[in-house]
């Protein structure tokens, strides 16, 4: 059974259709880069997979939980499908350590000691062991984003969703976050990431999905799809982002 299974998903905001029949499956361990123009529905698709947006029709099954079924346990799903946002969204009133510990204690029901030692391990993994007691506003954007990744990874999710997590960063900070992503990828995590970093997509992703006007326009192995686009839309998109 695929880890993620979307079948003919339709989503609109008011009268505006944003997802116009999305079908896709994602196997365990796959790394998928989602690319496409602004407004093509990339974020909306990711948010639907995490249950942050409700859909009008279609079926979404993630890790055996059918989100689109009435009364689905969205919180249980979200504890297994981590999501990292463009704007980091750390909790500003909590230290780095507490940011990571919060859901471990509340959702995973870990003891304070266990949560703390796991938090320390995860924060060390993203290279910020010396920042455990810092507050988010004392960190650079790149550091905040690495903490956000650590916070999600600490929940030991089966799937990670990343929505343009380097887009808000100064260029010199992008590298450190991408390196963390690469190490997560090497550990076999199933990942779906919206990105404008084409080199990263080419080198790290197994597969590329190109979205256009609310539909999946191309879907194929990363290198081939990016070096030999089949449709004019992807061709023109690639030439726009690469130049």
């Amino acid at each position, binding site marked *: 059974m695929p880890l993620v299974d979307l079948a003919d998903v339709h989503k609109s905001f008011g009268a505006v259709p944003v997802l116009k029949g999305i079908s896709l499956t994602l196997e365990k361990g796959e790394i998928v880069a989602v690319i496409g123009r602004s407004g093509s529905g990339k974020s909306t698709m990711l948010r639907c997979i*995490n249950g*942050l947006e409700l859909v009008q029709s279609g079926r979404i099954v993630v890790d055996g939980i059918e989100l689109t079924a009435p009364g689905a346990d*969205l*919180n*249980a*799903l*979200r*504890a*297994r499908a*981590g*999501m990292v*946002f463009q*704007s980091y*969204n*750390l*909790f*500003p*009133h909590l*230290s780095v350590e507490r940011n990571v510990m*919060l*859901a471990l204690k*509340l*959702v995973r029901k870990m003891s304070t000691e266990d949560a703390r030692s796991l938090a320390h391990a995860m924060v060390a993994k993203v290279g910020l062991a010396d920042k455990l*007691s810092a*507050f988010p506003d004392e960190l650079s954007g790149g550091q905040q984003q690495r903490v956000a990744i650590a*916070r*999600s990874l600490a*929940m030991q999710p089966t799937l990670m969703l990343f929505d343009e997590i380097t887009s808000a960063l100064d260029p010199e900070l992008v590298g450190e976050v991408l390196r963390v992503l690469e190490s997560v990828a090497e550990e076999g995590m199933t990942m779906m990431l919206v990105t404008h970093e084409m080199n990263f997509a080419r080198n790290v992703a197994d597969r590329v999905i190109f979205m256009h006007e609310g539909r999946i326009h191309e879907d194929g192995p990363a290198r081939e799809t990016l070096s030999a686009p089949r449709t004019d839309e992807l061709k023109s998109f690639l030439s726009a982002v690469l130049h």
Partner: protein
Amino acid sequence: MIREFSLNDLVFLLEALRWTVLLALVAAVGGGLLGLLVAILRTLAFRPANWLALSYINLVQGTPLLGQLFVFFFGLPLLGVNVDAWVAASISLSIYASAFLGEIWRGSLQSVSSRQWEAGASLGLTYMQRLTHVILPQAIRISIAPTVGFLVQLVKNTSLAALIGFVELTRASQIITAATFAPLTVYGIAAVLYFVVCFSLSQLSQRLERKYHAPR
């Protein structure tokens, strides 16, 4: 007969200050509880509740506090309910405070970015966990300064209760002035006493703000 301003008068003023503080305290607590209700009704996803709360807020904020005091002090007896100055002042100041505190708190809650709700949700936190561990701590910190700012106004506004004969600091000053004819001394002392109370509140606010940001 005119007499000198004496130590007894100072004691009288300090005793009256006690009533000023007590009245402000009652209004803050009563207004706080009622204000919480106002804030909830105002944010509930139920139109009639929003409308009701908004009308209440507009009515209270749009009329003078003195008028509200008179309505309770002179109006209730007409309906056969006898109230003394203390009760009338407590009720009207509580209602007055609730409209302002309710709006301050609603604004503080809504000024926490919706992304914070989403960040909590995406970690699997339940609605209540998001509210109590993510949103409220931030909203409370935001609300400290405006809340205390309003409480300072509230302390000063208790002086209006003098006009319905409630002997708090201002009324006491009037009484002593009439007896000693030393308005400068008496009102000077009253002003200092008001200042001490209000200044302490502001200091408290700054300490709270620091505390809520500091590591715990």
